[in-house]
């Protein structure tokens, strides 16, 4: 749908790496240019007209984000450089101060590196213990399995809403309910869910949530950190400098601004944040439910065809989103990706930043097709056509 809105699609490519990043519609690109051409000033400096305009636009995006995820307060929305930055700020700025030796954090083996490595770092620094919720046969997280690893030392459950390799939607609402019943916090990596489905942080009742603008039609270098207000108040800034302080005279006299400014030190990615607002409006216009339905339909369409090809091994037969991970029997995933590239197909090969998943699935690397709103049935037909003939792949991959 809406293919005419995306200039990149005029370049004769089939873009199927939307889990990595997404293409941008004209409105987002034009909004970026608008900032640089018409009101290119710094934010939070409203001393002159164009600077005031910047503030209005910048804060307008904050409000759009608030509505997009149905947060209660505008100041619960913090702009970062991306989901990685958001997760690092949450984990080091909040949990780095809160957790103590022996406290347990539950993650899964299919988490993205940015929801693993910061916790590993805290394990090394503070002596917290990382535990993994066992995945079921479909590689899903279930409440029953979560209950098996919860102990009276569990302080945090930190999971992706949708994983970037399997594409399963985790039951975050139930997980929050369970976690809160034992006074544990829930951190949600929504990088792969916010672009594809409706998110309501009040309904989920999650404590923290992180996602990136560029995976949802927005510019690179912009991310969102959501936290419940009372928790954000206790999130210690990991970055200090301009824009976040009230005054400072000596090490004993540092006065910081209120939320959200306190957590946004330095000149932010102003053009990016402003243009991200356009991406959110664009998505809302189509409707998140329509986007998810389109992706699920297209995924089923692709799977039904791929499953009939004997040399294709589908890793995630079951999935709730638009992600298909597969291998061609006997051919290294990267060679398949190189082969498809010769036909201008963009698919990803590798472990998709979920390096510890290989311990659980027994598959180190896969090809990943991740679908978005602008992908079509005819693109899937062409992909299947290219994958059907193994001899052709072997002949042309070099």
């Amino acid at each position, binding site marked *: 749908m809406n293919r005419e809105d995306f200039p990149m699609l005029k370049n004769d490519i089939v873009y199927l790496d939307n889990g990595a990043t997404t293409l941008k519609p004209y409105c987002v690109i034009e909004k970026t240019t608008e900032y640089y051409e018409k009101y290119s000033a710094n934010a939070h400096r409203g001393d002159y007209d164009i600077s005031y305009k910047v503030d209005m636009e910048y804060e307008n995006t904050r409000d759009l984000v608030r509505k997009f995820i149905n947060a209660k307060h505008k100041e619960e929305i913090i702009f970062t450089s991306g989901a990685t930055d958001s997760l690092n700020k949450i984990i080091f700025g909040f949990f780095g101060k809160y957790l103590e030796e022996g406290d347990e954090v539950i993650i899964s083996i299919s988490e993205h590196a940015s929801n693993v490595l910061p916790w590993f770092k805290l394990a090394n620094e503070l002596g917290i213990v990382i535990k993994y919720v066992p995945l079921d046969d479909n590689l899903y997280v279930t409440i029953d399995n979560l209950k098996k690893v919860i102990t009276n030392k569990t302080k945090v459950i930190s999971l992706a809403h949708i994983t970037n390799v399997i594409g399963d939607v985790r039951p975050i609402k139930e997980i929050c309910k369970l976690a809160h019943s034992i006074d544990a916090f829930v951190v949600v990596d929504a990088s792969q869910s916010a672009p594809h489905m409706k998110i309501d942080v009040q309904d989920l009742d999650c404590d923290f949530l992180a996602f990136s603008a560029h995976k949802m039609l927005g510019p690179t270098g912009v991310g969102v950190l959501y936290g419940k207000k009372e928790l954000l108040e206790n999130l210690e800034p990991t970055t200090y400098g301009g824009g976040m302080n009230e005054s400072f005279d000596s090490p004993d006299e540092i006065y910081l601004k209120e939320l959200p400014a306190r957590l946004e030190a330095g000149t932010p990615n102003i053009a990016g944040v402003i243009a991200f607002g356009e991406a959110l409006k664009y998505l809302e216009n189509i409707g998140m439910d329509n986007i998810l339905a389109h992706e699920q339909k297209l995924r089923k369409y692709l799977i039904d065809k791929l499953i009939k090809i004997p040399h294709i091994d589908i890793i995630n037969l079951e999935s709730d989103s638009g992600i298909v991970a597969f291998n061609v029997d006997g*051919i*290294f995933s990267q060679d398949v990706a190189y082969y498809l590239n010769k036909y201008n197909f963009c698919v990803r*090969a590798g472990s998709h930043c979920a390096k510890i998943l290989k311990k659980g699935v027994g598959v*180190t*690397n896969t090809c990943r097709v991740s679908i978005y709103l602008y992908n079509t049935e005819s693109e899937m037909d062409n992909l299947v056509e290219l994958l059907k003939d193994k001899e052709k792949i072997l*002949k042309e*991959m070099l």
Partner: protein
Amino acid sequence: MDENLKREIMLENYMHPLNKEVVNDNTYIKVNTNNESCIDNLDIYLKIENNVIKDIKFMGEACAISTSSTSIMIKNLIGKTIKEAKEYITNFENMVEEKNYDSNILNEAIVYNEIYKQNNRKHCALLPYVGIKKILDNYQ
């Protein structure tokens, strides 16, 4: 060399690489070699006696270019002295980097003589050499 023949040699060495096996023998020196920009990851095992390379084996996951290049490198380096091996490696690197090289000593490895045309695959062909050099440069 004919394009199809080159492809056949690479493919044969990819599908049936020489000495791709796990080594549990402490007379071998082990080194890992991987590409930061992609997902190739190989362990190379080298056995040296009296300054002569007696055996090389490897294990891991890598693309067709890296795997075939490793297999062909192993065929060519076994039996060479360290000095000869280094000379061979320099020649191979020069070929990939479009510098002057002696094609006579490279044997089958000249199938990669046009790999420079695919800039993103050069590091694949060089991958095993990066690993083996680490061992040879540190060998006393």
